[in-house]
C-alpha cells in the first residue's frame, strides 16, 4: 500500500496544568497517520483524550510535545500570518453542539461567508451570496435559509450549517468532533449520509471523533481506539470489529447494545481490568498483524502474535 499521507501525528502530547502541582496528561504520546481521502475514526470513553487530540491537531491547543505534519509541513511550528492563513484554509472543523458553535447574532449568510471573507475568496457581494447559496444547496438546505438566524433551525439543520461553513474555504481535511451525538437517530443518518456524499464529491479526508461505535464503524476506513490519553489499538474498521486484540477494545465492543433482541439476550459483557498489563513495561504501539497495531509490551506482543496464528 503506497497511499499518500495527508496527516502525520507523531508522539503528540497535550498536558493541562491543574493548580500548581498537578498536570493532567490528556493526550500522552499519540501517533498515527491519516491517508488522503480516507476517514479515520477515533473512539473512546469520555475523558480519554479523543477531542483534545482533534483540537490539538487543528492548533486550537498548543501541543505540549510531539509533532503534527500536514502535507509534510509542521502544523505547530512558528508561522507568520500568511502561512497560518494558508494552513487554516486546508483544515476545518465541525463541532459537536450545533447550537453553541454558531453565533446567534449572525445570519446564516454571514456565518458561512466568514471564512470566505477572511481568506478573501470572493470579490463582491453578489459573488459572496452566490457562493453561500451553492454551499447551502450542497448540504441540503434552501437558499432562502441564508437570511435567517441559527435559532430558526432544528438541530439537524444547524449541523448542516456547520458543515457548510467548514466547506466554504474548500478544505482538504475536516475534523468532525462528535458531529452527530447531539442529534436524533433518524437525523443522525441524514447527516452521516451527507458527510459520505460530500467526501465522494470533493475528495475530502475526515478525522471522525465519536463515542458511538456502530456509527464510527459505518463511516470510517480505519479506527483508532483511545484509552487514558493513549492510542491502544489501530486497525482497519472491519479488522478491528472482527478481530479485536487489546483487552480494552474487546470490552468496549462487548458493551455496545445492538438493535437485535436475540443477539442481546446472548450477549456477554467482558470487563476490562487494566492491571492485566502490569505496571512496568515498555508499552509501545506494535504491529501484530499487518496494518493492525496494538499498544503492548514486548511480552504481550509475542503472546498476541501467537494467538493470531
Amino acid at each position, binding site marked *: 500500500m503506497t497511499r499518500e499521507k495527508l496527516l502525520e501525528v507523531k508522539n503528540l502530547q497535550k498536558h493541562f496544568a491543574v493548580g500548581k502541582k498537578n498536570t493532567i496528561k490528556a493526550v500522552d504520546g499519540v501517533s498515527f497517520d491519516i491517508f488522503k481521502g480516507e476517514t479515520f475514526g477515533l473512539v473512546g470513553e469520555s475523558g480519554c483524550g479523543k477531542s483534545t487530540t482533534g483540537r490539538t491537531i487543528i492548533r486550537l491547543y498548543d501541543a505540549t510535545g510531539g509533532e503534527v505534519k500536514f502535507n509534510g509541513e509542521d502544523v505547530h511550528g512558528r508561522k507568520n500570518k500568511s502561512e497560518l492563513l494558508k494552513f487554516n484554509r486546508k483544515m476545518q472543523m465541525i463541532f459537536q453542539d450545533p447550537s453553541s458553535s454558531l453565533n446567534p447574532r449572525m445570519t446564516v449568510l454571514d456565518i458561512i461567508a466568514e471564512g470566505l471573507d477572511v481568506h478573501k475568496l470572493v470579490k463582491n457581494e453578489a459573488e459572496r451570496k452566490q457562493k453561500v447559496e451553492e454551499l447551502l444547496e450542497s448540504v441540503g438546505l434552501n437558499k432562502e435559509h441564508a437570511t435567517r438566524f441559527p435559532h430558526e433551525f432544528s438541530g439537524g439543520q444547524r449541523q448542516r450549517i456547520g458543515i457548510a461553513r467548514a466547506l466554504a474555504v474548500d478544505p482538504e481535511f475536516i475534523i468532525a468532533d462528535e458531529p452527530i451525538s447531539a442529534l436524533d437517530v433518524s437525523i443522525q443518518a441524514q447527516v452521516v449520509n451527507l458527510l459520505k456524499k460530500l467526501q465522494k464529491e470533493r475528495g475530502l479526508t475526515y478525522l471522525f471523533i465519536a*463515542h458511538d461505535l*456502530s456509527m464510527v464503524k*459505518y463511516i470510517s476506513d480505519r479506527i483508532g481506539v483511545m484509552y487514558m490519553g493513549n492510542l491502544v489499538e489501530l486497525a482497519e*474498521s472491519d479488522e478491528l470489529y472482527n478481530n*479485536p486484540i487489546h483487552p480494552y477494545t474487546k470490552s*468496549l465492543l462487548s458493551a455496545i*447494545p*445492538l438493535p*437485535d433482541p436475540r443477539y442481546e439476550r446472548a450477549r456477554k459483557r467482558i470487563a476490562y481490568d487494566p492491571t492485566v498489563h502490569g505496571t512496568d513495561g515498555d508499552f509501545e504501539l506494535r504491529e501484530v498483524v499487518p496494518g493492525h497495531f496494538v499498544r503492548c509490551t514486548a511480552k504481550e506482543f509475542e503472546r498476541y502474535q501467537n494467538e493470531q496464528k
Partner: protein
Amino acid sequence: MSKLLEVKDLKVSFNTYNGEVHAVRGVTFDLNKGETLAIVGESGSGKSVTSNAIMRLLPEPHGFIKEGQILLEGVDLAKKTSKEMQKIRGKDISMVFQDPMSSLNPTMKIGYQIMEGLMKHQNMSKTEARKTALELLTLVGIPRPDVRINQYPHQFSGGMRQRVVVAIALACNPKILIADEPTTALDVTIQAQILELMKSIQQKTDSAIIFITHDLGVVANVADRVAVMYAGKIVEIGTVDDIFYNPKHPYTWGLIGSMPTLDSSDEELFAIPGSPPNMLTPPVGDAFAPRNHFALEIDTVMEPPMFKVSDTHYAATWLLHPDAPKIEPPAAVKHRMQGFAQTGTKGGGKR
C-alpha cells in the same frame, strides 16, 4: 399477568404564547407486573411528557392533562391532588432521570438523600433508614458503602451517581420505576453496567419498568415490550421481537433502517427525510405522512386507527388495511430485520 398501570387515551397539552402545543395526543397502553416497557421515539415525540404526566410532574398550570385516565391498580392518578400525589411519588412510582448531575442535591450527603424517602413514606426511624440505605448502596454495587454514605454527589463519578439515583428510586420498593433516558449521558461501558444493574434488581423486586430511550440497541437489551411514539401518539406497539423482526409501521422501518449494520456494506443508511411536525398545529391525517415514502392518499385526509397484527402487536398505519396495496419494507430494513448480529458475524468475526 395482572395489569398494574393502564393509560387510557391520555392527552397532554401546554399553553404557550404561541398557542396550545399538543404534546401527547391520545396515548393508550398498559403495563403488567414485572415487565419492562420501552417507549422509543425522536425528541419531541412526547415520550418524556407521557412519563411526566404519569408522575404528575407537568409544570402546572400551563402544562396539563387535557383528557384521559392514568389508572394505577384501578385508581386514577390524573384526578389526584398534588398533596395526594406526594404520597404516591417515590413510594408507588419512582423515577430515574437522564442527568445524574442535576437530579441529586449537591448540598446534601447522598446517604440522607436516600433516607429521606424511607423516613417520609415508611415512617422509619433515622437509624433504620440508615441501615436500609447501606443495604441499598450495596445492592446497586457501590463499594465501601459505609464511607460513601457520608459523601456528597460531587465526590462520585457519573456512573456512580446514576447508581445512587437508582438506589433512591428503589428505596421504597416502588411498583413502577420510570427511567427517562437513564443511560444517555453515560459511556457505553458504564451504560452496560447500569442496564445490568436495573435488570438484576427487577428480577429481585419484581417491579415494572417504563424505559424511555431513543437508543434501539438499549431497547433490544432491556425491553419485553416496545411502544414506538411519533408526534404525540403511539404508532406501533408490540413485543420486542414483533418490533425488531416484524415491524409494520413505516416510521419503525425508518428508525431501524437508520442504524448502521456491522457488516461493512457501502449502502446508504435508510434515513427518514425531513424533521418532525410542529405540535402547535398537529397535521391532519397521519402525522408521519409528509416524511413517509409509502404514504397513501388517505394518509393526508384521515388518521389511521390501530390495526391488529397479532394478539400482542398493533400498528397505526393504513398500509395494514385490507384494501391497501401490499408494500414490502425497503431492502435495507428487511436486511436488518434478519438480525443485526447475524450480518455482523457473517465475515467470520468473533463478535
